């Protein structure tokens, strides 16, 4: 009980829990679940954007897109490392992903259908992710908080690049503008749902708040995102597909319509348009790569054996 109190006191004082520190098992489990889910999201998130690498319409954009996807893979690496400090291996976590026991962000279960989707993912999806992640930079678990600081910095850069891609397209031909609008229409509501169910229906939040893992509620973050995004959409010249979207001077916020939570939960539970394709691709990549990983291990073992023999 003393340990518990000391742990909670450290958190309440805005201190950081480090890997070697004592922590409650539930805290550890919650963090493993959250960090690994976040890591998986980065890795699965490479696929919808990877879909446009070979077709990027200019070399500059191809390079930017490649660099962005590389950053995401890098985020996956930091996050797997952060999770490993809690006493799991990356192999276990990947096994959980491939067998469907671990989740990843549901947003990646929607298809990328035209080139503007790449920009919209940067602007809106990464924008929403940043909104969610900035509070995590102050997360009570040190390794996670430090990973998030680095990740948020890079994500902000991606968001600006995505927005700039869209600005360029909006200054282009009518067909280009139509592509941007089409992409915004398809992604807007999915991005609002990224903040999770309304506070009234959210289960994990309270405990996470107390533990300093979560610091701002879903609905607050969602509102912040809407308030930040609407003016950007105006500058861009796209229409956000919500007739109820309107500035409310009394609240000092934008009002907006109802999210289709049924569709959200369908997708979370495996019935989105691309769930099977995303997971099937990860499984295939893992299986196709098995001989490579086995060979690398076998070679390393041979090397060690030879070094041992030479030393003897």
């Amino acid at each position, binding site marked *: 009980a003393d340990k518990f109190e000391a742990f909670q006191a450290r958190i309440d004082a805005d201190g950081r829990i480090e890997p070697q520190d004592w922590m409650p098992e539930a805290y550890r489990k919650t963090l493993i679940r959250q960090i690994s889910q976040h890591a998986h999201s980065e890795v699965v998130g490479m696929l919808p954007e990877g879909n446009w690498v*070979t077709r990027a319409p200019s070399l500059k954009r*191809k390079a930017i897109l490649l660099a962005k996807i590389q950053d995401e*893979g890098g985020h996956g690496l930091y996050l797997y490392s952060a999770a490993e400090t809690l006493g799991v291996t990356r192999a276990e976590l990947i096994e959980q992903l491939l067998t469907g026991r671990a989740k990843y962000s549901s947003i990646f279960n929607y298809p990328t259908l035209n080139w503007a989707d790449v920009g919209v993912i940067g602007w809106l999806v990464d924008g929403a992710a940043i909104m969610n992640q900035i509070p995590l930079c102050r997360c009570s678990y040190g390794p996670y908080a430090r990973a998030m600081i680095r990740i948020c910095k890079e994500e902000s850069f991606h968001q600006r690049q995505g927005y700039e891609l869209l600005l*360029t397209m909006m200054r282009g031909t009518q067909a280009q503008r139509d592509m941007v609008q089409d992409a915004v229409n398809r992604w807007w509501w999915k991005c609002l749902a990224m903040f999770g169910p309304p506070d009234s229906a959210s289960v994990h939040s309270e405990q996470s708040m107390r533990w300093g893992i979560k610091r701002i509620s879903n609905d607050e973050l969602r509102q912040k995102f809407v308030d930040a995004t609407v003016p950007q959409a105006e500058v861009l010249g796209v229409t956000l597909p919500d007739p109820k979207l309107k500035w409310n001077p009394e609240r000092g916020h934008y009002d907006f319509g109802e999210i289709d939570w049924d569709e959200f939960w369908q997708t979370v539970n495996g019935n989105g348009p691309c769930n099977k394709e995303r997971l099937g691709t990860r499984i295939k990549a893992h299986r196709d790569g098995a001989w*490579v*990983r086995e060979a690398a291990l076998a070679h390393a073992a*041979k090397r060690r054996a030879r070094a041992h023999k030479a030393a003897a």
Partner: protein
Amino acid sequence: MDAVATETVLVDYLLHLGDNALVLAQRNSQWCGVGPVLEEDLALTNQTLDLVGQARLLYQEVARLQGGDVTEDTLAYFRDAPDFRNYVLLELPASLPRVGYAQGDMDWGVTLARNFLYSALMVPLWDALQASRHEPLAAIAAKSLKEARYHLRHASDWVVRLGDGTDESHARMQAAFDHLMPYTQEFWTPSDFETAAVAAGIGVDVAGLRPVWRATVEATLQEATLRVSSDQGYVPQGKHGLHSEHLGYLLAEMQCVARAHPGAVW
């Protein structure tokens, strides 16, 4: 050679180098997100970025020489297969021999064997090109050399690891080299524009690099416990614009968005 002829030679030479980089980048980028292990996904994407960067610098120099509406993107997106001057080696799918429309799984062994064979050439080639009389090319070479050195080290490590790994990986690597090695013959049969570029002090006599390339290949394959495959047989002529059936598919995909919106800015 008069100025016009020199410029033509220079353009062809730069396009050859640029097309090599772009076409290999396009092939390797197909692994982005689906590599055998995350670190390698990133390492390969990093190299793809280097190659796209090299292609852009080379194309930009062509655009500067040609002027008018030519840009790096018109060169990448609005030329057809016979206009491309890359080695056929670089346009092949990452698989054992098959025709272009017969879909199939990608093979990491073929990808790494190709990266190895190509970067083992490009290290001495960029090195020598640092002395090109065409200064912008010499500058590009200096930058690219550093990248190629890393690509070669990465590919060599994998060739050794996979060649001297499991029985399966050994067999796969041997099959990959047996498949690819004959395509390297194209390196050593100079095209007219290469010969002219050498004469003009712009380019490098690639055939002269064969011994150093061969030494690299033999040393690495020996360490990898692999046989040095025969490099006899048909000599491809990609740099003359005569390609395999694969390039058409690669370009159709690469160029589809750009061509659907001619004149658009991205």
